[in-house]
């Protein structure tokens, strides 16, 4: 339920400007922030560090998640081997100690990598809130070009200071190709 309506009377999610170069998008991001907008969406066909810096950058939490995954894999993998080989199923193999920790390093290494990799992928999905099959941005027909060669800036109505007239003014000053209303 939005406070604002589109020209056709539908609920408004935000205003989206289309740009034909990454530099224009970066400049527009700064203009929108200077105008006081905070809930911005910047969409690019490939990763551009400058855009991320322009909208709202904080360090990714992903490395910590991956570290946690790796530690769980390392400790879990070793403990599995220790528990089975020493506690529940001790076998004398050529007189080697039950806790053959040197030999256990190899599977423990593999479980470390396995759990850290899952943490990296699932952590990335979680931080990006994927899978996310529906998003209002997809209602804009031109948005299909965001995965080709166009750059988009979205100012959402979730912004506490959102005002459709002022948002349009700000976006118009940034030399966009076109500006579209985004239906919710």
């Amino acid at each position: 339920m939005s406070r604002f309506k589109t020209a056709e009377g539908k609920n408004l999610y935000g205003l989206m400007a289309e740009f034909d170069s990454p530099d224009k998008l970066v400049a527009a991001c700064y203009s929108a922030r200077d105008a006081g907008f905070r809930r911005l969406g910047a969409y690019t066909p490939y990763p551009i560090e400058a855009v991320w810096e322009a909208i709202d950058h904080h360090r990714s939490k992903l490395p910590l998640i991956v570290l946690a995954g790796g530690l769980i894999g390392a400790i879990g993998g070793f403990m599995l081997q220790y528990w089975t080989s020493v506690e529940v199923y001790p076998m004398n193999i050529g007189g080697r100690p039950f806790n053959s920790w040197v030999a256990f390093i190899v599977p423990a290494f593999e479980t470390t990598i396995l759990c850290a990799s899952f943490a990296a992928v699932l952590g990335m999905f979680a931080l990006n809130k994927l899978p996310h099959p529906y998003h209002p941005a997809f209602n804009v027909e031109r948005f299909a070009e965001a995965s080709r060669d166009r750059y988009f800036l979205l100012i959402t109505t979730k912004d506490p200071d959102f005002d459709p007239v002022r948002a349009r003014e700000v976006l118009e000053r940034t030399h966009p190709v076109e500006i579209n209303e985004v239906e919710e």
Partner: protein
Amino acid sequence: MADLSPDGRMGKPPVLAPGHTPATVTDHISAIVLRQTPRWWWVAFGISFLVMQLLLVGIAYLVFEGVGIWGVNNPVGWGFAIINFVWWIGIGHAGTLISAILLLLRQEWRTSINRFAEAMTLFAVACAGVFPLIHVGRPWLAYWLLPYPNTMGLWPNFRSPLIWDVFAVSTYATVSALFWYVGLIPDLATLRDRSRRRWKKIVYGFASMGWRGHAAHWHNYEVAYLLLAGLATPLVVSVHTVVSFDFAVGQIAGWHATIFPPYFVAGAVFAGFAMVLTLAIPLREAFGLKDFITLRHIQNMAKIMLTTGLIVGYGYLVEIFLAFYSGNQYEEFMILNRIQGPYKIHWWALLLCNVLAPQLIWVRRVRNSPWLVFLVAMFVNVGMWLERFVIVVTSLSRDFLPSSWGTYSGTRWDWAIYVGTIGLFLSLLFLFVRFLPMISIFEMRTILPEAKDVHKKTGKAQG
């Protein structure tokens, strides 16, 4: 070569042909997937699919009859199954090397070959995985290899390299698949946006997880991708190391050697690059991808193949040297047996394929001719299979006691299953090039001048 650098002498050919923009790159690569299926694809896929039936029939008969249909017996208990397993898993290594290690080393040219090299890794590991499973004799009990609570109260012996192999290979397959899928997500979004048919939009949209290219998403994405590369790098080295432990931990002369892990890893990369070249050269012709997979890629890969080939050649020398240096009569005999024993043809052929043939890469004219490089790569493909044959069979066939010597050769079923896995590999590959972008579209966009400029400008603004 005529296509890109007119005389082949002045400087290096470019990584990407000039004149491309994000739009042309996107349209060119996605069109391969979205256009109508070319007729030759049906022919190629059909042949591969028929060849794959050899594998299916072979496995069906194997399950029905038992491993007696193979040539393995005492004293050679490891035959084609292990040779093919090591050969396939080695081939897979180049994909991970290109996608992970060359990424960390900032080798920009990897961008246009990493996607299908990773796909090749997955399919090669799939082919490799078939063999240990059917080699256990009762494949329906293969899950006993895994540690799981069971009513028998049994657990695997974690001191055995064979169990290490289970962990290494299954981790490798899983992580390669994750890495490949993560790399595909933005390109699946491109296909979703570019396809006109509704069902295609739904399928690609579902697979792309609703990727929108938000700047915050890209940020987490790049961190994830880099971390995966960092994790895959030690993993790929560990996999063939563990495979070599299957041999090196044994006491058989010719297996019990400390050089095995590095020698196996170099051999794996050598075989893998040969296979990437074997696939890349015809694919760039068939799909008109010479703008993206240029002579530069072929030259670079050929050079890596030559380098790793030299390491493998050094490995052969050290094996011979150590046999005599050890003063151990069994080791000495093992080498002499390889050179002049019943499998001498295999040994000499492997030297021709793996040591002599790659030396042609030193010649600039060979490096500049894709089809000559292709020819060398074919030699290496054969040579690396022979290498595994020589390692597995010569040592087992004549061990410590002459009274227990024997000979080995593959039966028609051995060959059927081996050739069948080549059919499986090619079938998977043809499905891949038909339904997924074989070149990473979003990464290609990042190496365009347009993308590089924006990085430079903001660098100044920041400073």
